[in-house]
């Protein structure tokens, strides 16, 4: 069976034992997601490239101990990416200022712009991303924006507050309430 036909966990297992073909397939399968998240947090294509590479290196180091009870391979890898991106931004001691990246992020996630496989094929089963996007889009917009900015954009509550033009307390409340709503929706999803 070609490596590209293997499921995510099988590819990760291949990466763990330095299987060349599995590693190639793994990187190609996830590189657009990983780079997309790195770019969303750093707003800098060159830094995002470094961060995305670092995320794959960290994943390779940890592949042998991936625990599928704590999330899918996709969310595990993206969590590693998010942390690597936040580390990189902190190391630079500079706050990303290119708002166009966050504008694009909000438009893509909340307005339903085309995003590769995120919106999904109409005939395929709904993916976890599809389900999440549907829940985000039915939430009060200000809460959904706050959640996307904080989680995918890597913004602090202070940055959400400045960007949205609301007091810090309001920004925090929007993030927390938004996450709570998503969790409630999660529990209702079969």
């Amino acid at each position, binding site marked *: 069976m070609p490596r590209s036909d293997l499921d995510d966990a099988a590819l990760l297992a291949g990466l763990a034992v330095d299987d060349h073909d599995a590693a190639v397939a793994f990187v190609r399968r996830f590189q657009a997601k990983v780079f997309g*998240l790195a770019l969303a947090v750093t707003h800098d294509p060159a830094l995002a490239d470094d961060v995305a590479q670092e995320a794959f290196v960290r994943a390779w180091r940890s592949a042998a101990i991936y625990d599928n009870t704590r999330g899918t391979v996709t969310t595990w890898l993206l969590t590693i990416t998010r942390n690597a991106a936040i580390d990189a931004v902190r190391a630079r001691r500079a706050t990303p200022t290119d708002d166009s990246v966050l504008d694009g992020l909000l438009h893509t996630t909340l307005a339903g712009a085309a995003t590769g496989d995120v919106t999904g094929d109409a005939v395929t089963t709904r993916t976890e991303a599809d389900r999440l996007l549907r829940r985000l889009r039915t939430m009060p917009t200000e809460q959904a924006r706050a959640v996307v900015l904080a989680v995918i954009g890597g913004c602090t509550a202070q940055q959400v507050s400045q960007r949205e033009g609301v007091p810090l307390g309001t920004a925090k409340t929007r993030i927390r309430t938004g996450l709570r709503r998503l969790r409630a929706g999660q529990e209702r999803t079969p």
Partner: protein
Amino acid sequence: VNGRGSHDEHLDGELVDLALGLVDGPDRARMATHLLGCSACREEYDDIVGTLREVLAATPEVEPTLGFDARVLSRVLPQAGDPAPRPAWRRHLWSAAAAAVAIPGLLLVGRALAGSGSEPDRSGEIAELAAPDGDLVGTVSISDLDGRATMVVAVIDAPPGARYLCRTTLQDGTVVESGPWTPSDGRGAWVVPLPDGAADDVADVELVVTATDRTWSAAHFDT
């Protein structure tokens, strides 16, 4: 908001900031300590982390520049003629005792001994133990047990059945290995003896899976 990590006061709103990675340094270690002993907060934290991970799945895709995959693969796959991937560290293997003591109890032992005359200066310092994805999986505290400098490594959510070495890097680059240790049911506490005089020099602590020699989680002490 709980300011001291008491199990009677829950972290509440702080948990979202913690899960988002917005809490640093001593506050993060304090909250990690609280989570080890408070099942209600731990459950709440795990729920929040689960939701955050779901949100990440909605990340829009952006293709990186041409050749990205080759750049990654050159870093993760052994190349022909490469030297051994790990540095030739100076190592000392120390015997270590796995302690079947309740985690909060051990942490309190470490703290209760702070203030006695023979303890290392850093006794009572606590650092969070984080998995590669940043999730809090335990704490490492520098302690003085029966007059001997030790670290107490407390873990939760360890992959079941795995055996670990504790790899401690001192400020001068010396690496000290202890173990192996297998936490029962993925959680437990481990008393790791330190060489004489090393307690003040601990910089980084890694829990390494013996079967793969790869790091499962790591803690960093500010020096």
